[in-house]
């Protein structure tokens, strides 16, 4: 770990002006971990924990506004979230451990970084270390021909196959959340689908935040009347493990037919993976097994497995099929 400065920001303005080339720290569960591994080496930490961004509020249009500092556990157990956005509560509770969820924040979760083992090696991307284009562009990708059982099969590039690890984000992708940010140039909103970036040939650029921008809120649109939502996470052990495949589904069935559906996958994509292909397959179809499996086939049609993660293709299909069944039951 490198020496760094630490400042506590009393308000948003001070947080923005005090940042310089530093980093915001919220729960610290990603950032401190990566600092200890020398992956993150911020010169300054701006502690944003006292900012008034820790509320969950109903919006006039029926949506829900979540402050960037709302802890994952508070969000998961919030009554409105449990009632109207069950998929989000379930996703949060399937992630990490109670201790981590008590610290982890909404903003931090959006920003969490991949669990690729090579990326997390202190010397990755430096001479003598593993190649990692995310750490240092142009150094290669050690995972490509290394241990890649947990890596992505969707949205990969020849430069990076790192999985986006978040559960929360998968639910938010299906809920079509909107992210509010505030920065040196003012306030703006970013549609959830535009927030996380595909690796392409710039895997070190992970999201749409401009330098110095702070996430302030995440808005969830008004719940779809009559829809149900479900999150299902599959992994080796029953708890405290990132997804090998997960699915978030929001669906509404009328007269036995699917009238509204949003599908997102986790554990398989380089970003939280909204599947328009699956949605297109399902829209208007009778809600039963054949349609679900067809949607799963469509969602994974472009999957590109590597040596160790081919099983994820079938696992993700089964995961989505089951989630669709649960959400439309």
């Amino acid at each position, binding site marked *: *770990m490198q020496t760094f400065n630490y400042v506590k920001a009393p308000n948003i303005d001070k947080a923005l002006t005090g940042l310089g080339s530093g980093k915001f720290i919220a729960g610290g569960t990603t950032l401190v971990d990566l600092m200890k591994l020398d992956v993150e080496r911020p010169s300054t930490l701006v502690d944003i924990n006292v900012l008034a961004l820790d509320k969950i509020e109903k919006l006039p249009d029926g949506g829900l506004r979540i402050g960037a500092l709302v802890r994952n556990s508070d969000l998961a157990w919030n009554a409105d979230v449990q009632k109207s956005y069950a998929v989000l509560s379930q996703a949060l509770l399937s992630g990490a451990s109670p201790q981590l969820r008590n610290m982890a924040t909404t903003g931090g979760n959006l920003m969490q970084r991949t669990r690729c083992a090579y990326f997390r090696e202190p010397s990755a991307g430096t001479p*003598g270390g593993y190649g990692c284009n995310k750490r240092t562009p142009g150094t290669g990708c050690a995972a490509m021909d290394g241990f890649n059982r947990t890596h992505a099969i969707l949205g990969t590039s020849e430069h990076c196959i790192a999985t986006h690890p978040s559960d929360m984000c998968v639910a938010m992708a299906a809920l079509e959340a909107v992210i509010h940010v505030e920065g040196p140039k003012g306030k703006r909103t970013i549609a959830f689908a535009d927030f996380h970036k595909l690796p392409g040939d710039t895997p070190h650029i992970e999201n749409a935040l401009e330098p110095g921008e702070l996430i302030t809120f995440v808005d969830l649109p008004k719940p779809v009347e009559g829809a149900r939502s479900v999150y299902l996470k599959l992994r*080796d*052990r*029953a*708890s405290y493990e990132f997804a090998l495949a997960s699915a978030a589904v929001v669906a509404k069935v009328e007269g036995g037919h699917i009238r509204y559906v949003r599908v997102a996958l986790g554990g398989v994509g380089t970003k939280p993976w909204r599947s328009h292909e699956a949605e297109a397959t399902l829209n208007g179809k009778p809600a039963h097994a054949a349609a679900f499996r067809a949607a799963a086939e469509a969602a994974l049609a472009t999957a590109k497995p590597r040596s160790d993660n081919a*099983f994820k293709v079938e696992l993700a299909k089964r995961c989505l099929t089951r989630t669709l069944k649960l959400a439309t039951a």
Partner: protein
Amino acid sequence: MAMDTLPHAAGIIGAVVPRIDGPLKTTGTARYAVDHNFPGLVHAVAVQSTVGSGSIRTLDTAAAEKMPGVLLVLHHGNMKGAYRLFPHQDDATISEARPPFEDEKIYYWGQFVALVVAETLEQAGAAASAVRVEYDAQAPDVRTDLSAGFTGTRQSSWKRGDPDQALTTAPVVVDETYATPVETHNPMEMHGTVAVWEGDHLTLYESSQGVVNHRIVMAEVLGVPRENVRVISRFIGSGFGGKLFPWPQSTLAAVAARNLNRPVKLSVDRRMMFSNVGHRPHTQQRIRLGAAPDGKLTAIRHDFFTETSMLDDFVEHCGEQTPFLYSCPNLEVTTGMVRRNVGAPAPMRGPGAVPGLFALESAMDELAIKLKMDPLELRLKNDAERDEGTNRPFSSRHLKECYLTGAEKIGWKQRTPEPGSMRRDGKYIGWGLAGASWAAARIPCTATVELCPNGRICVRCATQDIGTGTYTIFAQVMQAKTGVPLDRIDVFLGDTSLPDGPTSGGSMVTSAVLPAATSAANEAVTRLLNIATLTAGSPFAGAKADTLTVSHARIHAKDQPASSGIAFEEVIRMANLSGITAAGKTIPSWEDPKARDFSMHSFGAHFAEVEWEPEIARIRVSRIFSIFDCGRIINKGAGANQILGAAVMGVGMALFEDTVHDPRTGQPINGSFADYLVTTCADLPALDVTFLDYPDLLVNEYGARGIGEIGMAGVAPAITSAVYHATGIRVRELPIRIEDLLQSKILEV
């Protein structure tokens, strides 16, 4: 439960006794190795090799040495005063024969190449990452196929009859290869050392499963007389075998402390746990079984490879149980030791037996299927009445009863053999069983018991409590012998200044300490009673000592109640003694004419149930019944705890644990608690432990054998057999993976 035939049966022996050290641990007041701090103490951080094979070309410490607080950077260029342990030393064992920094060679990824000592841990850590090392790297050999390129010779360790001939004529044959991965010991407390020199005397605060061994090793390695070295390890956050023998961090801390003449603290971190301080090595085991159509075994061949490091000859003795678990006239067990660029392996809970029985018991399940026979039936049919390996009678073997009890508990009669034929609550279920065994012996031990004038008893022994309840066992014996309550008994362990005690390994501590403790207690009581008859003013002055006894902490006439006598400490005070001390000793079983002609082993069986949801390829272990024949259980609480904990580890072995080495660097690439999966609470099945509790009186007067390791043997094959029963998939290479289960043809409920 077996009939109780013992005079001590009533009372504390065999009861559920909470650990006397429990409050110290739960309140955080127990001090573990690296909790020790001293004035002037400084911190060391090791630098690890980033290549898996080769040699150091240049090692540049200039930048590190200039950093704040840095006091010393040790490496192969300036290391002095670390020697090899005499290779044939008969009373001590070291984990890695090569002293750290002996030369510039690299044998495995993560090998220590330098040590930075600084005033603070942060300074040492920062400087450690500033040490620049360049390597002439070679491709490391971490191939997981152990037969690949094997050119060594196979050792035959057991042979009887003509197994090859018997296999060619056997009507039914199973011939399969089973593999177990590298599993890493992950106790909560990591290895750590605080080294303190006073002149030429060294005290090491260690996390050690064997302080006596540790002292002998470190004396030789550091070139100082044994009596100048003291090793203290009062509490251990468990070891699972990884802390049996010293590792390089202990040498490094001692050498650095000697160089600086200041106390040095050095702890390995969680990442280093995966590369530097032992693991259960890969095994690859070919099992061939021949049987008659009625299931009677006619041949067993167990030919296995075990992986070791480049420099140390560690063998995972997978075939240890094979010669005596079943009755079979033709048998051979052979071993092939295979070198890879990995750190030295180490014993891990149930070494040999755990992977070995995974293979043997899996093959037995496969044989039962081929024979269309119930796997329980097959076990009962081939049960051995005598140890056919050593040709000796068993001191006590009730494996059949373990099986029958387990079958009753799970309701085995309802089992239908077809894979996927049993369902419950919309899920498929599968049942499997497997047997377990582990050696018992009485190993040497000494202990002293002191009856104190303040009414307390002090017991002293240089064995250690690795979290298993050894402190409590000593206290139980003292209470059984004197009636002094547990809160007036002080047990001192884990310190080489105490009378020599055994290493906490091989599940042999309980059986070893009991005779020493009981004989010391008996002798102390005899001395006390003699003093009572000889001391003026004692109510028993002039009485015959053999008419007296001690109970309820009081001396009284044998034919009178305890209330008639006096508190034992009054006599000690009347006689103006500082205390009454007696020593006790355990004669090893191999020197005991009554015991040495017997085969002494514990036995057990696990019955596992799994639930299978094919729709999402999810397997979960739902129930395990464990029935064990481990002699008499001295503390049913701590005893059950051992079997439960071992079953939990067994679930991890079956389903999760696998240290993966990157083929290019040889690095254990999943070396963290987030990436190396161990069982979590959410994975726990309902666990049910039964002890048959037959005393094995050839082992000691209470009839106790050990229980620390056996519980893990047999769990994995019971689970893989249950998985086969539920899914139709036979997993021969652990752990069981979703990848395997996705192949199941048992799909819709």
